[in-house]
């Protein structure tokens, strides 16, 4: 599973999953904090639809953390002020970068969570689609 999918599942999904995966690593390995979770900004770039150019929409508050396992670094970045989650994401990222054995068992957990996210978004969309207009032309 690539990093894009993995981080999407971890951030969109139940945060307890990130917590338990990170805890599994912390209990077995020496995790060194390189950068404590700290607040910062990410400038959001957007492609506009009129001329297909890009511009800066504004910033987003994020929390970022960096850790090291063996000689491998890991980074966790998440929206808003979420220091614990930023740390957990950094530990998971470092675990993947260090190719730790534990990560091979995580795929099934992440796929199951991805399914739950898909169901949740489908439910939200079904709710939204109840407001879809069914136009009927009136005879006047």
């Amino acid at each position, binding site marked *: 599973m*690539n*990093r*894009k*999918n993995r*981080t*999407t599942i971890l*951030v*969109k999904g139940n945060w307890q999953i990130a917590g338990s995966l990170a805890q599994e690593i912390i209990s077995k390995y020496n995790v060194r904090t390189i950068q404590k979770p700290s*607040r*910062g*900004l*990410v*400038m*959001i*770039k*957007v*492609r*506009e*639809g*009129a*001329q*297909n*150019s*890009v*511009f*800066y*929409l*504004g*910033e*987003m*508050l*994020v929390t*970022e953390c960096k850790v090291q396992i063996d000689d491998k*670094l890991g*980074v966790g*970045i*998440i*929206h*808003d*002020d979420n220091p614990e989650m930023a740390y957990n994401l950094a530990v998971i990222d470092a675990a993947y*970068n260090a190719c730790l054995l534990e990560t091979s068992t995580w795929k099934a957990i992440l796929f199951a969570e991805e399914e739950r996210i898909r169901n949740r*978004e*489908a*439910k*939200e*969309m*079904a*709710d*939204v*689609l109840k*407001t*879809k*207009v069914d*136009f009927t032309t009136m005879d006047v």
Partner: protein
Amino acid sequence: MGYIAVKGGTAAIEESIKRLCYKRIKGKRIIEVDTIKNTMRGLIDKIMSEGSLYSKDLAALAIKQSEGNPEEAAFLIRAYRSTLPRMHYSRAAEPGDMRIERRISAAFKDIPGGQILGASVDYTHRLLDFGLYDEEMADLEQWLREYDKNLIISDGEFNTRIPKVIEFLRNEGIVARASINDTEPRDVTRTSIEFPTTRCERLQTLTRGETGAVTALGYAAIRGYGAVHPTVGELRVGHLSVYIDYPFSGSNEPEDSIYIGEIQVTEVETLIPYIVEKPGGKQELQFSIGYGICYGQNETKAIAMSILDNCLENSHIKSPVHDEEFVLMHIDCVEATGFISHLKLPHYVTFQSELDTVRKTRSHGGNNHE
């Protein structure tokens, strides 16, 4: 006239701040930041948009601290933003990939994907609901249970990503196709605007503009002070995923990017007709697009932004709303509020000078009459 330095305000300032605190708490009621975040959606979206920082938590805190004053809340957010390091720039988010929760078109009835009303006050009676005085948590929970119970999900896949109306018009040749332009944008928060501006600077300034100011100028543009006749081709509200490139690898492969969360935005593409001169003197009607986008569900502002975007693309027209300096320099809430409110701070030196001049003039005038 010499300058006269004065002091003695420290105690008064301390008491003024105490008085401010008294005014906020004298009713002996506490509103939780979390309550503001979960019940004041319109205000939160406005503050995030004008504060140019996406954080519902901080917007709610700013609203509490400012006692609900939007200009002060946006000021607090901008000030806090300036204390934080900018760690990353996101990959270009594509609103075409938006997870839709509302989507309408005033130009076409039947748009592929359909018109989705979502949550909107447009169809409410706008009558005060006195029942809100007696709202009880138990009633809300009951309402939510019923709402959830009535939700029927079919087994089919839901397409949460719906193609844009403009794309269909482009395919028909009614709207000119624009090639992808990945030129790195300029950032108005890092370097001051110089005129003439670039498109990216205009869009960034418009999206962080004060809602009322952007709306007022957009309104002026369609009331006759501008040469635009807009129709909303598509208005969509939804969530955009935000990704950044992985900082350690230097890779810019999408698969290697990091998902950091999503933002809710309102995006508007307005169709504005114009005449194209064809060879042989033939004239053809085409549409140009005005573009608007802002944080949250902030529809009036996004529409007004799209009108002003198109006005500023035609800056040769002699009207204030087509004048980029007039529009861009006057819509920023912090600039405008800061400049106007500095007038109420003590500037005895300036006024003393003016007063001296007036007195001298009067004194000369008086002598003449004597």
